[in-house]
């Protein structure tokens, strides 16, 4: 039988403005047999989304298919009229977009939107469709499958919406489903749930599809075959295990090397513990009016304490909404705190950056998250750096220029970049400039907020290497805020795990994955996919309900004094966790944990 998807010698060209046409996709050929899942792997700009969308007969404005053939489930997509395209989209081939949060219309209930594609194609009457939707909700392990359709997108989480979007795509029983980075925007603990649900449905319904992603460990779980794209051309194609374990192309090997968790740790074992540079003590940050207790109405960062020794790197990890960015804003003096204190070199820092001394401001530098918005687009790089050099060091003229070149050299960029504007640089280069700007102040501690989140794996790995070099060469301290456990483990000395605004665990980064930890840390650690096929099936993350059904949770569980992780904790103990606030316990040679940590798991704690 012919392959369900067959792409031969596909060429797509595009033009920007009135320029000449440039090739975006070059001579791409692949095929997918019925019931198989093909992964399209590549970095941003590699053309993977363009290829995936062309299967739907959709080409972005300004681009066109210059040659080749696309055959999907017997239709020659390149030859279809727009009307015919519409008739197969959503019925024969459907699409699951990256960001489910913005793919749903917030004004309509879930059910109306999920059945819509099927209604458009009039496959079944509405009542049958709704029954079908409910069975899909169940298959995708959504909570309350009977009633979830009555709710609105704003009431559901990102992971739930992503699964609902998959349900929407599967409503018409399409021949082919295209997934475009469906889990990239999700937290790891959510990603694993979504992946398991997808995998179960794929197996049950024998779905043929294309899965676009840059995450190799996801590929290992989901796909049968893989195609590695770079600059619009295929670099390597084959079965997943071949690409992951015997890659032949140098580019695939580089991708794998970057994704491989690798330790960049310097050997610090012999060195004495340095004095503490930055101390965060019981910091409370929030919004709204103060309550009677003197705390804000909405607490975002809740009594967080940790310290950063000189020349060391502290990682702060947590999922979106856990308060890590607010913590960064508070430390850099942009968001006043309600209680607690912050000490730099033993001296208290003011909550407002304007009230800090020039030296304090110089010693603590912020490197912000988004490479695209972090540099003033109307100023050349050199000017941006020179401003900081002059602002803190008072250097002018030739001395300033020399210092700028020195800084560019420090972040491994050519001095000729100084005259360029940010729009002419790549994401990785911008992030290096971002670093250089912080270094221009000659700081003692640099606060990095999710700096690798928006970068491709290979580029991000290079930035991490750079950080490690700077730490070693300049004796800098870092606070590295991230949601990526691999990145954190590879460079950080210490780690603070944030959940719902509380530091549930603070300890050495080396100890992650072994020894005793807070249940959330363990969940986080176990949720990071490994690059082995079958990992998803073999990992069984214990669900909270198994420890103690939610119905048993004491009504007191909304008490803010109680453990913040109570509702999701797989190890919660009835009568203890839902009644008594968790104590701070420290494990000898291990982390400081905010948990009851029952004696049955471990007994050697000192309170």
């Amino acid at each position, binding site marked *: 039988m012919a392959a369900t998807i067959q792409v031969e010698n596909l060429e797509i060209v595009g033009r920007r403005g009135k320029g000449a046409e440039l090739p975006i996709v070059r001579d791409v050929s692949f095929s997918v047999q019925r019931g198989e899942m093909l992964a399209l792997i590549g970095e941003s700009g590699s053309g993977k989304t363009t290829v995936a969308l062309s299967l739907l007969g959709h080409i972005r404005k300004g681009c066109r298919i210059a040659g080749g053939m696309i055959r999907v489930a017997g239709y020659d997509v390149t030859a279809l009229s727009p009307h015919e395209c519409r008739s197969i989209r959503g019925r024969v081939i459907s699409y699951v977009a990256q960001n489910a949060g913005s793919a749903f219309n917030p004004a309509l209930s879930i059910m109306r939107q999920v059945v819509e594609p099927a209604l458009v194609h009039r496959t079944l009457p509405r009542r049958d469709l709704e029954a079908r939707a409910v069975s899909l909700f169940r298959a995708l392990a959504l909570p309350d499958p009977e009633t979830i359709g009555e709710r609105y997108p704003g009431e559901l989480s990102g992971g739930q919406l992503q699964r609902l979007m998959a349900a929407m795509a599967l409503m018409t029983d399409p021949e082919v489903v295209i997934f475009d980075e469906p889990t990239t925007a999700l937290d790891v603990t959510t990603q694993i749930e979504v992946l398991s649900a997808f995998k179960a449905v794929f197996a049950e319904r024998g779905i043929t599809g294309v899965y676009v992603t840059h995450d190799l460990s996801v590929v290992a779980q989901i796909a049968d075959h893989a195609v590695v794209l770079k600059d619009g051309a295929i670099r390597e194609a084959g079965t997943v295990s071949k690409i992951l374990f015997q890659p032949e192309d140098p580019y695939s090997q580089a991708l794998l090397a970057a994704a491989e968790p690798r330790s960049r740790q310097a050997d610090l074992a012999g060195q004495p513990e340095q004095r503490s540079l930055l101390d965060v003590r019981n910091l409370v940050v929030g919004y709204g009016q103060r309550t009677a207790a003197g705390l804000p109405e909405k607490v975002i960062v809740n009594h967080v304490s940790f310290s950063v020794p000189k020349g060391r790197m502290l990682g702060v990890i947590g999922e979106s909404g856990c308060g890590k960015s607010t913590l960064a804003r508070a430390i850099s003096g942009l968001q006043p705190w309600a209680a607690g204190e912050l000490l730099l070199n033993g001296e208290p820092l003011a909550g407002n*950056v304007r009230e800090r001394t020039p030296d304090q401001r110089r010693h603590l*530098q912020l490197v*912000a998250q988004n490479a695209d918005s*972090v540099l*003033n687009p*109307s*100023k050349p790089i050199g000017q941006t750096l020179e*401003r900081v050099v002059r*602002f803190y060091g008072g250097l002018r003229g030739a001395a300033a220029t020399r210092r700028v070149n020195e800084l560019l050299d420090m972040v491994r960029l050519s001095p000729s970049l100084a005259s360029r504007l940010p729009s002419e640089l790549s994401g990785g280069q911008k992030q290096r400039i971002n670093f250089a700007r912080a270094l221009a102040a000659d700081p003692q501690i640099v606060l990095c907020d999710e700096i690798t989140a928006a970068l491709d794996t290979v580029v991000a790995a290079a930035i991490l290497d750079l950080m490690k070099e700077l730490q070693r060469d300049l004796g800098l301290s870092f606070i590295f805020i991230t949601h990526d456990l691999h990145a954190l483990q590879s460079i950080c000395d210490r780690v603070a795990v944030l959940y719902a605004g509380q530091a549930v665990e603070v300890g050495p980064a080396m100890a992650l994955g072994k020894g005793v930890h807070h249940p959330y840390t363990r969940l986080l650690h176990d949720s990071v996919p490994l690059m082995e096929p079958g990992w998803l099936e073999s990992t069984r993350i214990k669900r909270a309900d198994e420890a103690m059904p939610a119905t048993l949770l004491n009504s007191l569980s909304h008490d803010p004094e109680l453990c913040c992780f109570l509702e999701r904790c797989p190890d919660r103990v009835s009568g203890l966790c839902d009644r008594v606030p968790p104590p701070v316990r420290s494990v000898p040679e291990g982390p400081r944990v905010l948990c009851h940590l029952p004696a049955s798991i471990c007994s050697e704690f000192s309170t």
Partner: protein
Amino acid sequence: MIAMIGKFRSRHDRVLLLIVFWLLLALLGPLCSSHDPGAIGSQPVFSAPSAAHLLGTDYLGRDTLGRLLNGIRHTVLLCFASTLVSCSVGTFLGIAAVTARPWVEALTGRLADGFLSIPSLLFALLVIAVFGTSTTALIVTMGVIYTPGAYRTSRALAQRIARLDFVTVARARGESTPYIILQEILPNMTGPMITDVGLRFIYAVLLLSNLSFLGIGVQPPEVDLGSMVRENMLGMAYGSPAMIVPVVVIGVLTVGINLALDSSSGRR
């Protein structure tokens, strides 16, 4: 760098070039005509174009071309001045609303809402009825009328820019507010603000022409495009250029800038 400037120019230079062209015409145009625009000659009224009078004569037998060039001067300069007033005051308030304390935004925002709710022609009639008509009164009135619109545009732009990371970093560095406004926010607003200036200029031309047509704008012996149309209404029966040409000029002026704006904002 050069490529970037080139890009910036190609996006906005049409609008700027067009405005500069009209300004030059307004400043230098009257010098090109040998006729005294106010002089009533012995020629017949509403005469057809001739070598002596390239656009014929008007209802008093005056040279139409000379009056037209003077009319353009008044219309363009008045409107340009009022646009400068509205856009600079509006931009200042818009940025202040973003960078100053919250009550500034609450106050300016509500004031702008209030002004926007009054129909502009009605407001102009009211002000002129109270203070009488004069060049200053017209500039100030039109300036006030279009300030809220410019305020809203600039506030929206500044709000978006002020949230970007590079502004956050500048604040964390301890930069002063004037530095942040002048160096970080303002340079990134210029593109859209030029579009806004062009748009306000068109509005002002239309409003001034309306007012003058109603007889409460520019007063004789001065002349602008709107009052020329009114004076020469009778000429419509004869197909006189004295009435048609100013109408065409108003059209060319406003539609031309509008098209230039569209082409510059539509392309990327």
